[in-house]
């Protein structure tokens, strides 16, 4: 049955592509966890908030229009101009940096040295807050996000594979772009952390907070920086997913897709996030393809977690996570 083989290959290839999209979300988690030991549950909401802000800037929406209208009885909606995409992206980045600064200033600063679970809870509180804040700021309707990313079936791949195998493979062009962007992002992050002053400081902080402090690295600055970078990663993830499904509340739920990726790859490893994403993406597509029909389908939600769980039983720190050394 060569046809079945092609189908399986196609499913696997698409799974890999989807995996990259998961990895993009997971990257944001890893960055923050590495630098500050915080499991940032708000990462998904960050992506949503970034995407909403981007669309808002693009369309020239007036922030808090609804609130203003409710209080003052006005009917404001739009500034009446559209911002070019590049400028809008830059503005959104500025907003994300500001957000990182405020988070450090108002939340993290006060929670230094708390247990990880408390910090985790604080990020959940932050997620709630941002969810409400984003809706008040930009409205709860579904927005179309168009930053000029291509979408739909890639004819080139379809034709090439058709002439090779007699079966045209389906690859989404958006996925290809996402894969390229993710690769660039990882390379950029690697270069940044290896070859720049701040990158080195970042690695020092990740290694040992106290030692880093003692050689004069400002912990607070590093935290702002890393949250800002995570905000930027969230913006990229939000752009990819937002193009796929429109900017709406459910965008924040992609965080749940990134968690098994994190478990599998390890909370502290950037390559781990990528490899984990690829394994999860491919695994769930192949499982749905082969076993799904036997058990009634729609297995993606839990399969990723089960796969990660099985992996963890053998490697409790994930594939690339730092080995857990315990002392009494």
């Amino acid at each position, binding site marked *: 049955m060569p046809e079945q083989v092609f189908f399986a290959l196609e499913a696997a290839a698409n799974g890999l592509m989807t995996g990259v999209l998961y990895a993009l979300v997971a990257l944001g988690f890893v960055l923050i966890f590495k630098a500050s030991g915080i*499991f940032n549950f708000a990462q998904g909401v960050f992506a949503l908030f970034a995407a909403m802000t981007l669309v808002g800037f693009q369309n020239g929406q007036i922030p808090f229009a*609804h*609130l203003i209208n*409710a209080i003052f009885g006005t009917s404001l909606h739009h500034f009446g101009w559209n911002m070019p995409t590049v400028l809008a992206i830059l503005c959104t980045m500025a907003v994300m940096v500001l957000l990182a600064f405020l988070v450090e200033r*108002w*939340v993290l600063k*006060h*929670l230094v040295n*708390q*247990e*990880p*679970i*408390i910090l*985790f*809870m*604080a990020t*959940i*509180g*932050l*997620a*709630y*807050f*941002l*969810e*409400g*804040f984003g*809706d*008040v700021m930009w409205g*709860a309707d579904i927005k179309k996000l168009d930053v000029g990313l291509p979408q739909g079936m890639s004819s080139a791949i379809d034709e090439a594979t058709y002439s090779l195998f007699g079966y045209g493979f389906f690859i989404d062009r958006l996925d290809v772009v996402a894969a390229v962007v993710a690769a660039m992002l990882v390379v950029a992050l690697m270069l940044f952390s290896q070859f720049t002053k701040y990158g080195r400081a970042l690695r020092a902080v990740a290694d040992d907070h106290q030692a880093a402090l003692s050689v004069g690295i400002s912990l607070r600055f590093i935290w702002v920086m890393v949250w800002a970078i995570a905000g930027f990663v969230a913006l990229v993830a939000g752009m990819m997913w937002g193009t796929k499904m429109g900017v709406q509340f459910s965008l924040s739920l992609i965080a*749940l897709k990134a*968690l*098994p990726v*994190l*478990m599998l790859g390890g*909370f502290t490893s950037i390559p781990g996030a990528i490899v984990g994403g690829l394994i999860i993406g491919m695994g769930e597509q192949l499982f749905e393809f082969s076993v799904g029909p036997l*058990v*009634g389908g*729609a*297995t993606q*939600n*839990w399969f990723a*977690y*089960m796969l*990660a*769980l099985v992996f*963890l*039983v053998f490697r*409790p*720190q*994930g594939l690339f996570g730092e080995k*857990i050394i*315990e*002392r*009494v």
Partner: protein
Amino acid sequence: MFYREAGDFKTSYRDDAQTFPIAFDRLRYYLVLAVALGVIPFMINDYWANAVIVPFLIWSIAAIGLNILMGYAGQVSLGTGGFMAVGAYATFKLMTSFPDLNIVIIVVLSGFITAGVGVLFGLPSLRIKGFYLAVATLAAQFFLIWLFNRVGWFYNYSASGQINAPERTVLGIAVTGPASPPWAQYFICLFFVLVVAWMARNLTRGSVGRSWMAIRDMDIAAEIIGVNPLKAKLTAFAVSSFFIGIAGSLFFSVYLGAVEVGEAFGIEKSFIALFAVIIGGLGSIFGSFAGAAFMVLFPVLLKNILVNGLNWPTDLAAHIQLMVIGGLIIVFLILEPHGLAALWRVIKEKLRLWPFPH
């Protein structure tokens, strides 16, 4: 002036080891019981029962269950929603298969079934720790929901895939089904809350509880001094799931009456329980109540103030409500990372010295 030990002499070990060793505290406890048993049942109406008190009691049970696991045994779990679903579906199957069985027995049995499932999903905790475990318990959450949605046997192959609680009575009074009076719903939940709180309190200060806390504080050290981690972790999962199963069972049969698994027991439910435990205070029974009260009462209160009191548009109120709750969680954590229970302890200390603080 209040909460003072002075003059309160204990003449036996039994007295010394009681739950509320301070006379004033004991009095307060009996007072709360008296109000719960003697006053609320006469004042309760449909709105109070269905919107406020019954969900509060049920979430208290769930929070106590999760607190055993997280606060006492130190194992983070995000599978509460899934385990509640197990309790609910066990109840439904038992109710429809054995129509003559008393509902109290059914609820307890559902608790036991959930405990079994909990132990099964607790097994990985022997290898996996911390956040990895938290995420691993999500596997239970998603898998169980999918299973109940997929396998027709669990919902008796009904066309809609929903489960409905038929009417069941205790002492001739309906406690489930639409015709049950609010005070009966209240009493059945209160009964389980009291039993669960009593059990939890006594378990946690016995040898089992000590072994949990030893594991929580440092599992390797605990192992060295002779605590069996397998036994301690699995009993924690079992007891915790037992309580959560009871909560799920009541949630379905008494509170909602009709349930669709994905909607009623989704991951948000896991988070509500988690919030309740952390805001209330890890490792505190009182904290579980306080946390549940915060998570259930506060949104209703806020909504009533903003929408009915200030006449805001409902959507704006709902968004602001999210912001306020999120903000308050952060503020609480900053001010008192150990939760409302720690706040309560501080108040008690202050009251003890009042009015002469030196």
